[in-house]
């Protein structure tokens, strides 16, 4: 059967959940081959094998850490040349989409970004225009390069033994131009990753700047915390937690919006959530049109009451 490349998202050998989703989708198209760009392949191999990757290609070059994106795209193009896969699947992070874009140019392939489904014939589904339309599309030139949004499918295990194979690459001078001269790590929140979480609790301008009740409910539910742009622009929550057109798109099982009006740019980032709950003082707030359950009330009383009840039930 044809091989399908899956570009692994991982940190120090710990594989991120969306990669397992990619491997699950890849099995519809052929035999998944995982590609680790940078260190970590040996540590990641057994987890990747759990989801059907019989081969893990390890590609290492110091340029990956010294320069932005271009070296990874050049390396991946060489992997594609060597493996001649039926398709290349990547996650839909900013960096992966850029790798995908540059790869598509390099190997002369069609590109589909932010797919929410990939079928066995290679056709994909995307939601566009703030989630109001669904598009089915298919690449018809070259090796299809497809980026898939997190939480698009449930990861299903299909254990095999994974063998790690080193693949040497050459990175040209042309890819060594955008130099990373400083990198300040951000501190982790300790909560689930926003795009991967099963539940997201988001706060907006209605929080008045106090995210305490939002965080408390999130922790009671084991959820991630999100924010509207109004909350981020006010400096109440970091930008990496913004949900919407210019932030993250999330597709959790449950999205709880507290003190968020539901502007089109916010909806663009959460409209595909399986269930939506809104808490808002204003009965006319557009977010209620999306909600499976809407609570018209003050989030400062509703959220703590719900958190207290959940905590009481747990003990």
């Amino acid at each position: 059967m044809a091989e399908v490349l899956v570009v692994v998202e991982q940190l120090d050998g710990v594989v991120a959940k969306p990669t397992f989703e990619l491997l699950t989708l890849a099995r519809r198209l052929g035999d998944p081959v995982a590609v680790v760009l940078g260190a970590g392949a040996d540590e990641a191999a057994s987890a990747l094998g759990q989801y059907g990757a019989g081969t893990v290609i390890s590609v290492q070059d110091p340029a990956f850490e010294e320069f932005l994106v271009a070296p990874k795209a050049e390396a991946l193009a060489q992997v594609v040349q060597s493996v001649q896969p039926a398709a290349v699947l990547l996650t839909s992070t900013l960096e992966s989409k850029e790798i995908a874009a540059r790869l598509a140019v390099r190997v002369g392939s069609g590109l589909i970004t932010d797919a929410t489904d990939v079928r066995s014939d290679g056709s994909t589904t995307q939601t566009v225009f703030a989630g109001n339309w669904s598009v089915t599309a298919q690449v018809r030139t070259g090796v299809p390069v497809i980026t898939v949004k997190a939480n698009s499918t449930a990861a299903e295990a299909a254990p095999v033994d994974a063998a790690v194979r080193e693949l040497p690459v050459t990175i040209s001078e042309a890819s060594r131009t955008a130099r990373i001269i400083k990198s300040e790590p951000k501190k982790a929140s300790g909560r689930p990753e926003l795009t991967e979480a099963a539940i997201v609790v988001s706060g907006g301008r209605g929080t008045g700047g106090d995210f305490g009740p939002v965080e408390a409910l999130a922790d009671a539910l084991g959820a991630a915390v999100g924010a509207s742009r109004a909350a981020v622009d006010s400096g109440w929550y970091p930008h990496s937690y913004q949900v919407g057109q210019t932030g993250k798109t999330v597709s959790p099982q449950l999205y709880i919006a507290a003190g968020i009006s539901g502007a089109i740019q916010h909806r663009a980032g959460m409209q595909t959530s399986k269930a939506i709950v809104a808490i808002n003082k204003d009965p006319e707030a557009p977010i209620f049109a999306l909600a499976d359950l809407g609570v018209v009330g003050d989030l400062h009383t509703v959220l703590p009451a719900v958190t207290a009840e959940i905590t009481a039930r747990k003990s």
Partner: protein
Amino acid sequence: MRIVVLVKYVPDATGERSFAADGTVDRAAADGLLSELDEYAIEQALQIADEGDDVEVVAMTLGPDDAADAIKRSLQMGASAGIHINDEAVHGSDSLATSTVLAAAIAKAEPDLVVCGMASTDGAMGVVPAMIAERLGWPGLTFGATLSVSGDTVSIRRDGDVASQTIEASLPAVVSVTDQSGEARYPSMKGILAAKKKPVQHWALADLGVEPAIVGLAAASSTVLETTPRPPKEAGRIVPDSDGAGSAALVDFLSAGKYI
């Protein structure tokens, strides 16, 4: 120094957007405007021009006749000239073809710096800047929350999820900036009047040496099979929170859905 800002004309996101029969964005159905995210790119270019001597800001768009509005708005904000690439053959182009045409136009315009928005508000792929950098072989500094130029060095700060990075490169380079880079200025009365006298060049594919056969819908490297509007969402339950009824309903909802 010459800066080219890439600006796209898009259907208004707050209006009804839809698809035409050929699977392309229906540009006749909705009012169009300069993509809001490209205003941030113009703003950053204008700030460089405000601070430097002899900086020319050229707004470049690829699009149909109506896309002239995107150039007009850029000129009103303060860009000094415009380039409108308009060719019947381009209709239906995918990101690969779009980047081919824009890269050829940039090569012809010979700027020192190209500034783009982070993503267009219609296609929203956010890939054209990286593709252009790849095609030109220029450094690509993408998703900048800040942008600065000093001598022939350009640098951005890129705020990722795990780290905030500072990226540096030599000119010429391609940059994209996010909506974190700072609010865009509003055209002044003076700017609106001055815009009328600013030069706009019109280029077709022949001026760029791009073969019409490699762009447009027929040459697109991916094809749209179907477009379907999302079915309207069934009305949910709305509960006023009097006497704790709202929080009780929410707890019931969470427990029924096995979230707790």
